């Protein structure tokens, strides 16, 4: 055997050795390689399994209507096609564990304006506002129900918007007077309150109709219009809605 190897020419022997070594390394690598590197089918399968096992965070609106009856109320109105989680955030945790985790309840103006702020790139007809001109600082939910966000109806009573004034006036001596005795509110004021303003008395004589000496109602406090604070309008000192009209 050894003689046989010696009879092979030297150069060929080296080539043979190299050949054996290369084959050996190739076999060794093949043995050491993990199975998923040899068969691409395995790594495709494990990746798909890995991908499918990822946790779901948005539960989908069907999960909401299972418990929330009020979610069905949203079936009408402009927001009827919105998923609950569009506004209330990812809620899979809440669906699985309703008492411990709660979805978000956005009440900030900035949240609504995320969709409804005016932007010339938005499709025309989409309802948009300029927040600086549209009741600044007032929370949207005070006038618009987000589950049925129709534009609010024109208020029948002044108190619908001026509730604070209505409550103080109820305690004041002027409680019997309608708002329109002193203010004129044109129809336009109810639709766009900031463009069309309600009037306020501009003359001393207006208050004098009741409060001047020898005129009007007997129980109203009387002053001498000629000597009492002549250059000021009455309401600049006396706030007529307050309980004590000082």
């Amino acid at each position, binding site marked *: 055997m050894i003689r046989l190897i010696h009879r092979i020419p030297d150069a060929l022997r080296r080539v043979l050795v190299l050949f054996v070594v290369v084959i050996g390394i190739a076999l060794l690598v093949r043995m050491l390689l993990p199975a998923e590197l040899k068969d*691409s089918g395995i*790594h495709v399968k494990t990746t798909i399994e890995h991908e499918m096992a*990822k946790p779901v*965070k948005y539960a989908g609106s069907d999960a909401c209507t299972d418990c929330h009856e009020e979610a069905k109320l949203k079936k009408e109105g402009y927001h009827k096609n919105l998923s609950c989680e*569009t506004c209330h955030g990812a809620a899979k945790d809440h669906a699985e564990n309703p008492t411990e985790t709660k979805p978000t309840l956005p009440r900030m103006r900035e949240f609504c304006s*995320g969709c409804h702020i005016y932007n010339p*790139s*938005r499709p025309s007809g989409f309802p948009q506002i300029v927040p600086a001109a549209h009741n600044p600082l007032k929370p949207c939910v005070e006038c618009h129900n987000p589950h049925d966000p129709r534009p609010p109806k024109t208020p029948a009573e002044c108190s619908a918007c001026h509730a604070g004034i209505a409550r103080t006036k109820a305690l004041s001596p002027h409680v019997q007077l309608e708002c329109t005795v002193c203010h004129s509110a044109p129809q336009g004021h109810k639709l766009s309150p900031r463009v069309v303003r309600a009037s306020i008395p501009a003359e001393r004589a207006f208050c004098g109709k009741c409060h001047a000496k020898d005129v009007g109602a007997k129980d109203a406090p009387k002053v001498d219009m000629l000597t009492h604070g002549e250059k000021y309008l009455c309401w600049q000192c006396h706030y007529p809605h307050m309980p004590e009209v000082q």
Partner: protein
Amino acid sequence: MERRRFLSKFISIAASGTVLSGFFKRTFARSPDYDPKGHYYGMGIQIDKCIGCGKCVEACKAENDVPKEPFFFRTWIERYVIKRDGEVTVQNIDPRIEQSKEVFSEGDILRSFFVPKLCNQCEKPPCVQVCPVGATFKTEDGVILVDDDRCIGCRYCIQACPYGARYLHPEKETADKCTFCYHRITKGMLPACVEVCPTQARIFGDVKSNASPLGRFKRMNKLHVLKPSLNTEPKVSYSGLDGEVR
């Protein structure tokens, strides 16, 4: 004697075989009710409906643990502004920045719109072609996935994608991309971006199915895909796509 030995051997082998096959079925069967062969997914996007609110971007980031920084996206929204002088500007919408603080005066704008973008899940994906380690592949149901364990983070696929749909995940240091929310769609749910879109600008479904929202979208609209000249054959189709969109 011979016959008895044969029988006892046969019985023991048969018994162990049934046990083993049961074991294999239990461990290696994928989600039993999901068959990828029955599906082939695609998406439709209606440009005229997108209001650029960024809810899809937020939902995608929450659902898929995409880093919050404004340069990692699986889906994103581009705002196109075409000015009267022919200049085209494209901005990536960041939902956290108020869009009213912008530099365009309205008189300059010829037309303007939003374009939601995501991985087109190409029929002939260039990213799959260039991957040197075969880490990215197309599934039977037509979604392009990345194997995190195999990806070496070489960024070839990020360069190769003509739509810029891939990014290098800063923590995993592997390529990351839209999977159509593979973990959701295989459970019969909608992708997170489709779920939260308030105007139904995105429509998801089976490209083969006619009786589905996607089938209806394809019948009722004139469709276009992004960069058709590259022959990537995207499965995300757009209606109302402007010629300026790249």
